[in-house]
């Protein structure tokens, strides 16, 4: 599965990279690569079996702790 994801993300990058390079904006390129890298890492982690905590569940816990009586 990791290979599939690597190929998938790699292909997406390969497709968009030329136009980004042509754009000639370093900021664009950097942002793109950082965010794609983040997405890639998260996807790989999930397929490997590392599950991150649920984001909205954490929000729910915070709100319940603060506003317990109103909810």
């Amino acid at each position, binding site marked *: 599965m990791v290979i599939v994801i690597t190929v998938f993300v790699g292909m997406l990058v390969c497709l968009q990279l030329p136009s980004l390079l042509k754009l000639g904006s370093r900021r664009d390129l950097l942002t793109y690569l950082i965010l794609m890298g*983040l997405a890639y890492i998260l*996807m790989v982690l999930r397929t490997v079996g590392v599950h991150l905590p649920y984001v909205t569940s954490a929000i*729910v816990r915070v709100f319940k702790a603060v506003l317990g009586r109103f909810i």
Partner: protein
Amino acid sequence: MAELAQGRISNIQLVLLLTGFLLGTSILILPGGDIHPDTWLAFLLGCGQGLILAFIYLALARRFPGQTFVKIAEAVWGRYIGKIVSLAFLWYVFHAGALTTTNFLDFIKVSILPSTPAMLLVLMLVGVCAAAVWSGLEVITRCSEVLVPLTILFTLFLALMLIPDFKAANLQPVLQTPLPELLKTSVRVATFPFGETVIFLMILPFLNKQNKSLSSVVIAFALTVFILITGMLRTLGVLGNVAPLYVYPLYQATRSIDLGHTLTRLEILTSINFLTMGFIKASVQLFAFVVGLSQFLGLKSDRTLVVPAWLLMSLLGLYNLPGVAETIAFTHTVYPFYALPFEVFIPLATLVVAWLRKLPREGQQP
């Protein structure tokens, strides 16, 4: 800059886009919690409160014509606080998009494809939205031009098909809900779906004629509330006291259509309604996030972020909530409080500060 927003949208298109956006998830998850015979009244009240919110957003948009919320925040709050405010706003947009994704995922996982891997599902679902965003705002708008009338048609058709199962007695007793309870429900309805129009602060600048947007908003709200009330009445009329028992009462009610063994299994129309409207909602949210973030970071091209935003929104969709029951509980209990700062406080404070500082000043207008 802003090549995604090329090809401006007319007012009638705004009506349809806004309706599609509002119906997005509420066409499957009825807002306001458990259905009871007075829910329609709560819908109307919530729609009214939502209109008040919409006036705030419109006033803000008119004060700064042609500027998205990210730009407005910077102009009003100054450089640093402005950055924080727009970052918070962008988080809300991103998270709302991810929540729509989670709703998609939950529904498909529970009702249609239980054993397909979740990651593949979200990537594909949001992938369609990403393709729409890549093509630009005009494409999303044109999609809504086709899909929203279809949804209205399907909703009316389903309501018609449910007449044999409809029992008017299920709609009684009327007006027996205590007022505080009713107001609570109406506030929920105001925050979801009506208050979520705050995201249109990223869309309104790309409107052709802004002076007529008020009537478009009112028409879209009326249309939405009409569809929601139709769905609610038919669901309650068919399911009665068991409606709160089901995760998706609207879907469950359509499962009972069985006209002469031929017109049956029409619940697929409900699924189509949800998938198409959810597509529009998620696309609008993804678009707003992409455009907002690239303006925030000062990027040269909007398209840079479409693909990363697609993957990240899908992933957050996976990491939102562990299950359907939690999602629906969140929508009905915590979400109204969670959304309050983004839907009410930030726009209202921005408007007030802009008014106090007499912004925008002459000559500053772009």
